[in-house]
């Protein structure tokens, strides 16, 4: 029972950050129709930047348990690179063949990986177990780090927030309208440029925030973006491209499966995930929640 709970909790923890990155991927794909491979790189940048901010926060003599605030701040702040990439590169390939859009984001992946190596070097970076400051909690015999629960909670709040924004605000309605019919929304007087910048920034923030939140519990390595993007890719394929609900369910499936596989048959860890991805693509290429808009 305890082990099952442990597996489940670590799975949901995986899922919570995975969801953020995948949600970033989805929102950009939904509106711009660009499959952004660089989402994983934004995640890696968020992680490294989070380490820098938290370390200087602690070095500045602030109380350790408050580190979550600057961490989230770092994730949000780093979102400013979104408009830079959108205006500087991505905007040139709207309306071009998907192949070229994909390749352009691949170029960004290559560049960011080296930027990280240039700034932070190749050795893994950690926060030195700062997440343990919150201690551990006993849930029905299973010990769960409290920090992980906080991350799960944050992720749920963000998910609810995205849901609220998409369904109940003007911006959300514009996003959904654009995802549905771009020309029509443009004809109705919506400033597309602005929407694109905002949406891409949202996608970026979700990635950087995901990276910042996950990093106290693990170590940052320069390849983490390249590794995560294939997981996020699995999530969106299983959930359905462009669907937020899909990202949520997909992240849960991939996250929990991953932790089950790790604790039972480590050899099969990623193998099962890819097999599911292929199975989903073959049986229902639009994914579990495909067809439903953002």
């Amino acid at each position, binding site marked *: 029972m305890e082990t099952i709970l442990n597996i489940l909790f670590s799975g949901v923890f995986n899922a919570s950050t995975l969801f953020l990155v995948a949600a970033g991927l989805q929102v950009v794909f939904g509106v711009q129709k660009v*499959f952004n491979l660089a989402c994983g790189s934004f995640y890696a940048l968020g992680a490294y930047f989070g380490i820098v901010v938290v370390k200087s926060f602690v070095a500045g003599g602030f109380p350790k348990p408050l580190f979550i605030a600057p961490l989230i701040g770092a994730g949000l702040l780093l979102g400013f690179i979104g408009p830079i990439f959108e205006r500087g*590169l991505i905007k*040139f*390939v709207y309306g*071009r063949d*998907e*192949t*070229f859009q*994909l*390749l*352009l984001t*691949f*170029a*960004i*992946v*290559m*560049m960011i*990986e*080296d*930027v990280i*190596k*240039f700034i932070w070097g190749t050795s893994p970076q950690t926060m030195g177990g700062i997440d343990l400051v919150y201690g551990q909690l006993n849930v029905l015999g299973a010990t769960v780090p409290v920090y992980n629960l906080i991350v799960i909670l944050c992720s749920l709040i963000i998910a609810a927030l995205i849901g609220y924004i998409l369904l109940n605000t003007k911006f959300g309605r514009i996003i959904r309208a654009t995802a549905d019919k771009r020309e029509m929304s443009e004809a109705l007087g919506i400033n597309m440029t602005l929407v694109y910048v905002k949406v891409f920034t949202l996608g970026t923030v979700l990635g950087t925030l995901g990276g910042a939140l996950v990093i106290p519990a693990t170590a940052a390595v320069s390849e983490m973006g*390249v590794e995560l993007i*294939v997981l996020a*890719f*699995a999530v969106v*394929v299983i959930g359905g*491209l462009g669907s937020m609900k899909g990202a949520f369910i997909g992240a849960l499936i991939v996250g929990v499966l991953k932790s089950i596989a790790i604790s039972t048959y*480590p*050899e*099969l*860890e*990623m*193998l099962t995930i*890819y*097999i599911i*991805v*292929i199975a989903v*693509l*073959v049986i229902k*290429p639009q994914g579990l929640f495909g067809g439903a808009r953002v």
Partner: protein
Amino acid sequence: MKTWQEITSLKNVKIWVLIIIGLFLLGIPLFASQFLNYLMLTFFAYAITVIGFNLLFGYTGLLSFGHALFMTVGAYTAAFLTGKFSVLYMEAILVVAVIISSILAALIGAICVRYIKIYFAMLTLAFGMLFYTFLLKFYYLTGGDEGMRVLRPYLLGFNLSEIPKMQYLTRSYYIYTFVILVILTFVMWKIVSSPFGLCLKAIRDNPEKAEYLGVSVKRYRWYAFIISGAYAAIGGALLAPAIGQVDPGLTYWTHSGTLVFMTLLGGFENFFGPLIGGIVYIFLQDKVMSLTTYWRFIFGAILAFLVIVAPGGIAGVVSSLVKKEKRDE
């Protein structure tokens, strides 16, 4: 007797240029350094892979982001046959690599060609990563992340284990690989200019119309997938003895990205584009890597530039310059 005009007509000039380039490439070992030869050798292996890849990408319009899978199949075939089964005949390795990769490509292709564009790219990426984790996790079979050693194969039945390694690679193996490249390039030329190749182009430009005209779109895409898979496997099998060691990194999705990069760099709209891209990529990478460890950044910037400004690649830029020249006259 041929008239002088006939000999110097445009088509013949092109053939002469190719022959001269071919002889030049063949003659490189006579005067160039061993290292340069070695780079050329890697280029030959990649050239075979990308020229097959472009049948799928440039001619059929399908972007595979997992094509390194087949290259890896070829490379591991060489490693298994030489290391575990003591089969050292290169010809046997190539035949087995083609058979295995064709079967695999037929299976994977049967699933993938039902989709196009982004879904096709994603499916192939998923298969590539599936194979990657397979190689990584089943280490008792594949050596895991350390990979496997590749022994020196016999060429045309000759046991060449007496010669020093670099001499073997830059002389005998160099010529061997080059001849295979020339043959396969010629075969590919025949394929793309055959009715089959024209059908592929028609499918790329307008699948509905092609289907309407009686071309079985999926079947032709499937054929193209198998052929390009077999080409990649030959490239991989030839690359393996040159690098001497194969590891799962060969099938990681970024390596597939490298193949796309090479093709785009040279120009996917031109038959020889991928070859140009391959040679430029390999030599540029060597140059940039010797200058800075951050070569990926520079290559990323080049790729971004290509995508935004010059999607036709080097061949595209050159041909548009030539056209401009002609217009000005």
